């Protein structure tokens, strides 16, 4: 098959393109109000958006399974605490620190997955409960004063640029995105996940081990949330309670802006990326405009509405 035919087939979904278009619009507004065009500034925003972007990928996977993960924020916050505690500011601890953080994240995902499949608790509630428990455990074990720090050497992950113009964190984000895209769209496992997400009963009746796949999705989501937490930690360098809490709602909003459906069966990594960048760029734009705080909330709300209204407008026309 020719490459061009292949490329045609890989054309992103309409929903992703819409999100990208909105992003471009916002970037234009951003650069106009900044009064200059600077690719480096753009890349710097991408760099700083990476933690959210990574978390959104996980949320998108869970949404693909027709579920919701309200524990990503608490998980990312927990990751920050665990990472700093194990690191204790010493590069020599990198291995254990990262491993333990991801391990703790995976446990959260496992709990979420088992609760929704084995105990049949709707995911909204199961993950809400885990998020309460995880946040509670963090406060309980740290007494509110988390320990440790991320060593300067590790902060390269988010603070340094490859060849001076490619931020490492953007690379990590991109790599995870590609990995997930491969998993979902190019492997049997991913196909089975999509089928389970689109119609769980039908998937079960076709012999697909859907419960396992749902657990897998939750574990992936929590791993990515923990990774987001690690990236945030690299940015801040310190342990503080609740750094990732904002990720929960932001990740859902970003994924949905990027075309994800609550009904499941859809995974649009490009859209998820655009969604995360949209939220981040809106924030940056608002800083630039230095609007009064009240206006800030209003503009943020309106942009989310706009993104979604665009999507449904198109849908309506086509049906």
């Amino acid at each position, binding site marked *: 098959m020719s490459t061009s035919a292949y490329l045609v087939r890989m054309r992103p979904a309409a929903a992703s393109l819409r999100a990208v278009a909105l992003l471009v619009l916002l970037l234009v507004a951003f650069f106009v109000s900044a009064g200059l065009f600077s690719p480096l500034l753009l890349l710097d925003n991408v760099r700083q958006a990476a933690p959210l972007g990574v978390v959104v990928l996980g949320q998108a996977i869970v949404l693909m399974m027709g579920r919701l993960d309200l524990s990503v924020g608490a998980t990312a916050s927990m990751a920050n605490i665990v990472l700093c505690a194990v690191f204790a500011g010493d590069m020599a601890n990198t291995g254990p620190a990262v491993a333990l953080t991801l391990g703790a994240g995976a446990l959260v995902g496992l709990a979420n997955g088992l609760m929704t499949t084995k*105990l049949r*608790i709707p*995911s909204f509630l199961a993950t809400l409960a885990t998020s*309460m428990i995880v946040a*509670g455990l963090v406060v309980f074990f740290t007494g509110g004063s988390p320990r440790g720090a991320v060593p300067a050497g590790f902060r390269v992950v988010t603070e340094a640029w490859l060849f001076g113009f490619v931020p490492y964190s953007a690379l990590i984000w991109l790599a995870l995105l590609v990995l997930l895209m491969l998993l979902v769209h190019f492997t049997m496992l991913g196909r089975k996940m999509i089928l389970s997400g689109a119609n769980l009963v039908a998937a079960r009746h076709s012999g697909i081990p859907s419960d396992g796949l749902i657990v897998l999705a939750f574990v992936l989501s929590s791993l990515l949330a923990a990774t987001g937490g690690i990236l945030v930690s690299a940015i801040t360098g310190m342990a503080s309670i609740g750094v990732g809490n904002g990720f929960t*709602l932001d990740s859902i*909003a970003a994924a*949905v802006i990027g075309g994800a459906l609550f009904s499941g069966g859809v995974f649009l990594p490009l859209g998820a990326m655009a969604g995360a960048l949209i939220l981040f760029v809106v924030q940056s734009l608002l800083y630039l405009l230095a609007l009064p705080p009240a206006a800030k909330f209003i503009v943020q709300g309106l942009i*989310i509405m706009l993104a979604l209204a665009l999507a449904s*407008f198109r849908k309506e026309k086509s049906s």
Partner: protein
Amino acid sequence: MLPRGSIRTNLLLGLPALLLAAAIVAVAASWSGDFFAAGNLGNLVNRVLPLSLAALGQAFVLFAGRIDLSVGSVISLSTAILATTSTSLGWAAVPLVLVAGLACGALNAAGVIYLRINPLIMTLASSAIVKGAALILMPTPGGEVDYTFYDAFYGQDLLVGWPLAVILLAFLGAFLLFGFTRFGRRIYALGSDDRAAYANGVDVRRVEWSVFLASGFFAAAAGVAVGIKILSGDPLIGDSFTLDAIAAAVLGGVALQGGRGAVPGVLAGSIALVLIANAFNLLELDPNLQQIAKGLIFVVALMLFMRGGVRRTA
């Protein structure tokens, strides 16, 4: 004697929350002499009031299979409006606040119906917008609600008083509405299955309008209760209500996917949530454990529902 039909199923869903509340009362009362102190019971009723009203509004939306994440912001806005207008308007400020709540509900309904935005995201967005409005009206906590409001409404913070009356009235009315009217049936129908409801002649838009308006209204009513409690306005005070209202409803057996649950359960759920915090304080348990305990209680309660024969999972 439980009535026949789906009401019976729905009422039974509220049972775990009721048992939970009873268990907490039993434990708290036997280990702390203060539980039945008159002051405490009055306090509890006053705390249940705003939470249960917000949860009741949320229940309208949840029964219809939608969700409203703007409840907290509407409560904040309501306190701000009350605190800026009550000195000049007196009690007339209350209907004004309720109208503002209806307007917030209308915003949600319009977004969901005309822009076809998913309710979760629409109300998330409107929550930001309403919060912005509250901050414009009142950039920092302040304003004033006269003490006469407190005296007239909460009085001596006793068990029996206006707050209890409002709770009973609102929940009795809603119980009859959902259990025994065609309108209530339509709401359940929509939550049960959109398409089927439409095919059965349910005017989907009208029902969506009404549930979002109801949610805005009850959130505003909760806001009035909070505003009179704090005798001022605070643009952030409602934030915690959003999730608590959902948690109370769900603990009371309301299904997030719509179509199931009953109003008495919502009240039981609200009471249980309020009791948990109270018991922690009275028993002097480590406050750091409270959130963990809440999460675990949640899981256990939900497990009970699921064991109790749920047919569909979200």
